[in-house]
């Protein structure tokens, strides 16, 4: 019976989703499970002293980074998609470049450049014979500094999402808008922007989650947020440190739940697929004179400050005082980073397809909830996830050894926690959100009638996925894979804690040198890290222009 089949499919989907979600959420659950434990007075102490600062700074940072990224990402995406001005073709791909710079490296570059003892202020003092107190200079190690630095590094998520949405928009809706007498600005505000809302919100929520989880850059900027507070607490040489760090993590989770709730609210019941399949060249408005100059500047600034300046600083320092192990850095260690990134991103995209497609086939509160849970990890600092993984995976290892000892009289040792399995697991918990968000946003734009047609023609769900949806989503899948790749290559805390003996990645090497305050030597690794990150960014950029349906290939 058709009804029975459907029920059975629904059950299989549900179980599959529960399995993936369960695995991904386990590390978070085991950390939060520590919440109830005795804290030795430490929690009460933190609550009465620093907690209010954590709350305030975390909220202000998220609000600031979110707004600035939104403005930068959407404005530049709209400009390069529908307006013509000098440099437009260059900016189309260059606007993604800041993705290749890990935020902690951006923060390091800017604090080094702009602090009191940095070259800029030193030059000012020398030139004008000023001393401390003679002049006012914005403090880079501040909340405002952190907002700007993070937004410059993270706006590409919004840009990518918005640009993909604008490019995929049917020309008809814009033509209708023009027929109704809307100019470019009103067409943007009244039609294009609302249509692109789900994509933009997906990009924005990635930015916000990254911001909540951000440790390195915020720490450099001397701002105390939940993420830095969790690390500080965890690192105390104190038997209750883990418990209290878990309690702080649970507070952070509340923020994430709030964020996810807001996201769901922002998307509400609206349907966002296009009903027309007429794709022609997008209209393009020619900008002239001061307007064109303004557009050029608006697009050049994020690229310059988000990519060119930090990259140049690292290149210069690597050249002047680089790491003696430079060759090894670019080949051996670089290969480790590359391979880890490739495997983790393939896995993340595969899982994301399964999760989102399962949800599309059987949309109900249970599947919706599970998709959301599967992406919570993105907002949790990598260090917290690493500890969760450590607890979960060593637990499994002990069980494996107990069983093996009972059956064969010999124990295999730490087969999971001592190998890259643990790291790859950590990456899925941390970054699955990236691929899920992108794939989900794209799937929403595929009309449900497509599914109906395929099913009417007798295609099984699997066949439909393989023959209809995957080809339609090809661009998105590649984009999601590339984003996860970049994130994995940049990831530090989980890699540091979970890696096997003697296994180094670029981010680990950079951290070791930087934490010893040997930043000149760290520059070589930083540069290599940026270069490895540029590969997927370049692929993404090329791809973006080709994803438009009906575009000549």
């Amino acid at each position: 019976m058709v009804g029975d089949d459907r029920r059975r499919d629904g059950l299989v989907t549900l179980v599959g989703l529960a399995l993936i979600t369960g695995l991904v959420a386990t590390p978070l659950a085991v950390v939060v499970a520590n919440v109830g434990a005795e804290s030795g007075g430490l929690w009460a102490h933190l609550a009465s002293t620093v907690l209010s600062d954590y709350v305030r700074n975390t909220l202000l940072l998220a609000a600031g980074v979110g707004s600035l990224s939104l403005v930068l990402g959407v404005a530049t995406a709209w400009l390069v998609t529908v307006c013509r001005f000098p440099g437009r073709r260059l900016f189309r791909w260059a606007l993604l470049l800041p993705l290749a710079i890990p935020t902690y490296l951006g923060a390091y570059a800017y604090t080094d450049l702009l602090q009191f003892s940095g070259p800029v202020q030193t030059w000012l003092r020398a030139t004008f014979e000023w001393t401390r107190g003679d002049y006012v200079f914005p403090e880079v190690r501040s909340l405002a500094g952190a907002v700007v630095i993070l937004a410059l590094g993270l706006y590409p998520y919004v840009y990518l999402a918005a640009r993909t949405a604008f490019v995929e928009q049917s020309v008809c809706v814009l033509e209708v808008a023009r027929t109704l007498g809307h100019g470019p600005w009103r067409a943007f505000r009244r039609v294009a922007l609302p249509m692109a809302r789900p994509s933009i919100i997906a990009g924005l929520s990635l930015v916000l989650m990254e911001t909540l989880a951000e440790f390195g850059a915020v720490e450099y900027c001397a701002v105390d947020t939940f993420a830095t507070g969790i690390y500080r607490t965890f690192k105390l040489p104190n038997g209750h440190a883990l418990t209290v760090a878990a309690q702080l993590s649970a507070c952070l989770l509340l923020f994430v739940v709030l964020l996810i709730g807001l996201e769901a609210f922002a998307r509400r019941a609206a349907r966002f697929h296009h009903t027309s399949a007429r794709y022609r060249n997008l209209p393009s408005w020619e900008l002239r004179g001061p307007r064109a100059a303004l557009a050029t500047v608006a697009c050049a600034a994020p690229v310059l400050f988000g990519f060119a300046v930090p990259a140049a600083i690292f290149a210069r320092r690597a050249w002047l005082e680089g790491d003696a192990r430079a060759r090894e850095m670019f080949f051996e260690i670089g290969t480790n980073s590359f391979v880890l990134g490739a495997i983790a991103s393939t896995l993340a995209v595969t899982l994301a397809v399964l999760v989102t497609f399962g949800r599309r086939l059987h949309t109900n509160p249970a599947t919706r909830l599970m998709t959301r849970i599967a992406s919570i990890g993105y907002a949790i600092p990598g260090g917290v996830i690493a500890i969760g993984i450590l607890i979960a995976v060593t637990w499994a290892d002990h069980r494996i050894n107990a069983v093996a000892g009972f059956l064969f009289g010999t124990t295999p040792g730490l087969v999971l926690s001592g190998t890259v399995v643990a790291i790859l697991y950590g990456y899925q918990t941390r970054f699955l959100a990236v691929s899920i968000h992108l794939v989900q946003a794209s799937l929403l734009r595929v009309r449900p009638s497509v599914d109906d047609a395929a099913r009417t023609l007798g295609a099984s769900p699997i066949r439909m996925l393989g023959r209809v949806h995957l080809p339609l989503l090809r661009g998105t899948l590649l984009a999601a894979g590339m984003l996860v790749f970049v994130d994995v290559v940049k990831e530090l805390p989980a890699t540091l804690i979970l890696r096997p003996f003697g296994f180094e990645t670029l981010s680990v090497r950079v951290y070791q040198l930087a934490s010893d305050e040997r930043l000149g030597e760290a520059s070589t690794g930083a540069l290599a890290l940026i270069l490895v990150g540029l590969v997927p960014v370049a692929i993404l950029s090329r791809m973006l222009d080709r994803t438009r349906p009906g575009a000549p290939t």
Partner: protein
Amino acid sequence: MSHHPLLRASILAVLLLAVACAQPEDSTPPTETEEPAQTEQVVNVYTARHYDSDDAVYELFNKETGIRVNIIEGDSAALLERLRREGDQSPADLFVAVDAGRLAQAESEGIFAATSSPVLEERIPAHLRHPEGLWFGLTKRARVIVYAKDRVQGDEITTYEDLADPKWKGRVLIRSSSNIYNQSLMASILDAADEETAEAWCEGLVANFARKPQGGDRDQIRALAAGEGDVAVVNTYYLAQMAAGSPEDQAAAAQVAVAFPNQGGRGTHVNISGAGVVEGGPNQGNAVRLLEFLTGPAAQEIYAGGNKEYPVVSGYAVVPELEAYGEFEEDPVNASVLGTNNQQALMVMDRCGWR
């Protein structure tokens, strides 16, 4: 069905995963306690020291003994958590930390096995090792006050207590209280005075900050040289490394001088990096050999030369940069006390608003 994209993708993913799982197991060190005689001898080290000079020490050890040193470097809190979770399955033989507080914590959690070694007991002074041989100091670092030569006279500041004097208002540079070196300094002050006095000192210090605590110890020295403050609190090896570093760092280091605080009193606060043999480790004998090697002349010389720390063994030479700062009296408080006082220290610092 072999053309099926989903199927192909799944097969690819599974293959990649299989490769990923299979590959590192070859390089995972054997964890069995009893190894056949012909396999290579190893010792597995979890270390929070992250210096290239350490690699040179391990290589030398390997050359002399044939024992290969496998290392995992990382934050000591995370390494300790990993040790704890791995339990009796842990491959770790030796745990190396860069702060006495962490050693004391590992000690209280039963991570270390008591080690008796006449060599170690003879070389290392009693206050820099555990009385029952649970851990041993490897290197020393003094947390000193440095001042701008052109703006401050050497006799103006002679104790940690002086830092709270209102005359230094807006002139003191120091990093965040999140840093364990500051926590241990505060812990040593809590050992020397009652909590009320210590908290009053902390409040005075915070009131004297030249800026919000930020950056690392080198950043304090650079800010001092640039004129953002007039005195700073830093570990000796950072200054010594800058004095032998890039031209800019050398110029900055040349503008500052070292004051060893509390001479004639309890002495200057000294912290150690140290190590202990892990209880239940598969190669404990090798771990003891490594410990003995690390306190021997060759290793101590590399520690002193590469990282510019003070050797833990008295009588070994210090590098010229450190020698230039002169000799000093150490605060003889046992490292365990720094661990015991840590939570109280943190609470005092948080209450005073030292971020």
